[in-house]
């Protein structure tokens, strides 16, 4: 394995270990599964819909992640700065980029694990009917990418401050803006004042718009580029912020 990947792997392994040695991981997973269940079954009337699909499940994801993903990401860098371990980590023979990638990958995999634990949904819907599993797979891919985009935003806000609370709130606000830009009621309202082109441009920067494509079972390269672009931009900015902290 090459050295950079080795370092990313070592840092990611430590992060994941950190989640599971504290109650954080278990509390998160339980709450995530519980809320996913509550949103899908009682709130969306999953059974009354009489549809062999997981639409009722995925449609809530951008709201579900709004609070849960910042809760996972808020400590990524703010904790390092509060404990002073950032000085230890960045004076090791690793680059800032490797440290950022290691930490991000660990948290993203953790979110992936939480998402994967919703597999009983797939079993349920396959047991009850005859769904298009390709669409379900697309939904999962989209959901995972969206979680990554939210996480990269949390990663950025956690680099801004030592306080996890400030990091959490900032992250929720930014993620909310990314949802609202494509929220249909808001878009309808904006159409009264803005030209249709401007409204559609605005809704194009929304995670909701891009995730909707995945829900329909369409994997469009532009949607993948959007999510990966957000991730890359936020992680790059995180690197800039960390470097500027060090420069004093």
């Amino acid at each position: 394995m090459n050295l950079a990947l080795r370092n990313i792997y070592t840092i990611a392994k430590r992060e994941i270990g950190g989640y599971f040695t504290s109650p954080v991981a278990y509390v998160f997973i339980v709450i995530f599964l519980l809320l996913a269940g509550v949103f899908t079954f009682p709130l969306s009337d999953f059974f009354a819909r009489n549809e062999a699909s997981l639409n009722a499940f995925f449609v809530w994801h951008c709201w579900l992640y709004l609070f849960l993903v910042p809760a996972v990401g808020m400590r990524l860098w703010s904790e390092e700065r509060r404990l002073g371990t950032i000085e230890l980590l960045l004076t090791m023979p690793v680059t800032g980029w490797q440290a950022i990638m290691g930490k991000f990958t660990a948290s993203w995999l953790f979110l992936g694990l939480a998402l994967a634990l919703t597999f009983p949904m797939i079993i349920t819907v396959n047991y009850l009917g005859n769904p298009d599993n390709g669409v379900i797979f697309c939904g999962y891919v989209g959901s995972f990418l969206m979680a990554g985009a939210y996480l990269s935003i949390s990663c950025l806000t956690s680099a801004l401050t030592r306080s996890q609370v400030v990091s959490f709130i900032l992250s929720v606000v930014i993620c909310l803006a990314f949802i609202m830009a494509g929220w249909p009621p808001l878009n309808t309202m904006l159409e009264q004042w803005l030209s249709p082109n401007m409204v559609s441009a605005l809704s194009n920067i929304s995670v909701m718009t891009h995730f909707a494509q995945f829900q329909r079972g369409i994997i469009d390269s532009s949607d993948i580029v959007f999510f990966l672009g957000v991730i890359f931009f936020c992680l790059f900015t995180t690197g800039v912020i960390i470097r500027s902290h060090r420069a004093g």
Partner: protein
Amino acid sequence: MIRIENLIKLFGPKKAVDNISFTVAKGEVLGFLGPNGAGKSTTMRMITGFIPPDSGSIQVGDYNIMTSPIPAKQLLGYLPENAPLYTDMTVYGFLSFTAELRGLRGAARKAAVEKAIDTCFLGQVAHQNVDTLSKGFKHRACFAQSIIHDPEYLILDEPTDGLDPNQKHEIRSLIRNMGRSKAIIFSTHILEEVLEVCTRALIIDRGRIVANGSPSELKAMHPDAGSIILKVDGVIEAAVKDKLNALNYVKSFEILKVKENRVTARVYPKEKGSLFAEQLANDANQCGWRLEELHTDEGRLDEVFRQITLPDTVKQDSKKKEPVVTVRI
């Protein structure tokens, strides 16, 4: 060798480090002294590549820390101030993690972790979570990570801070032993530590190097260094004064204490040297004084430190208050 040239670091308008240059070779233990906020930690952070300098160059072995940070960092071991640790790990897990980042794998990593645990006396807490440890253990766990890869260069920011006297002693002897084969820079507020461990000391004040020399050279900067404390019995004060006034190799003296027929005086030589004590002892014997004590004052590092690093205004005030009774010949 670590070579630092014309290092400057600004924090806003304040010059935290102001044109510092020095070198540390292998086999040297360099003590970094200075009041709080003098720029010690900032200098160390720049050497280890944590913060970039505004100008100047830092050479670690064959590498420049700015242009080739990764190979330079591989040669360094660093104990940051306050010994930060990941609180959600065990000591063993933490050391294992740092060893892995240092490029140690498999059996080599296991051996390195076990050796570091042994060297830093962490055996009894190896499988304990870091946040349950006392301050002394935390400090040693962080110290252990700095030596885990047996680095050629060690940068230690206050390595004995918060340790009890026994632990301090252990860490000091460890540093002294390692100093034979490595180049070590360590900062401290404890002046005895410098005398005990360092081969050379730097005093930094307001970002500048104000003194650089071996501990004994620094002590010799004290105005009383080289003077002799003389305590004689069976003689009156006037006779001692007369005799000392008559000696041509004595520059000046002061009577420190007179109790019955026992006189204690501090005698300053015209030329500092080892012969002075011998001459004075001979003359005292010839006069029939009973010598109770005669020793050369080597100077005191804490006084030198105060003299150098106190702000000028405070220095003037403290000079005024000092009652100096010196008899000029």
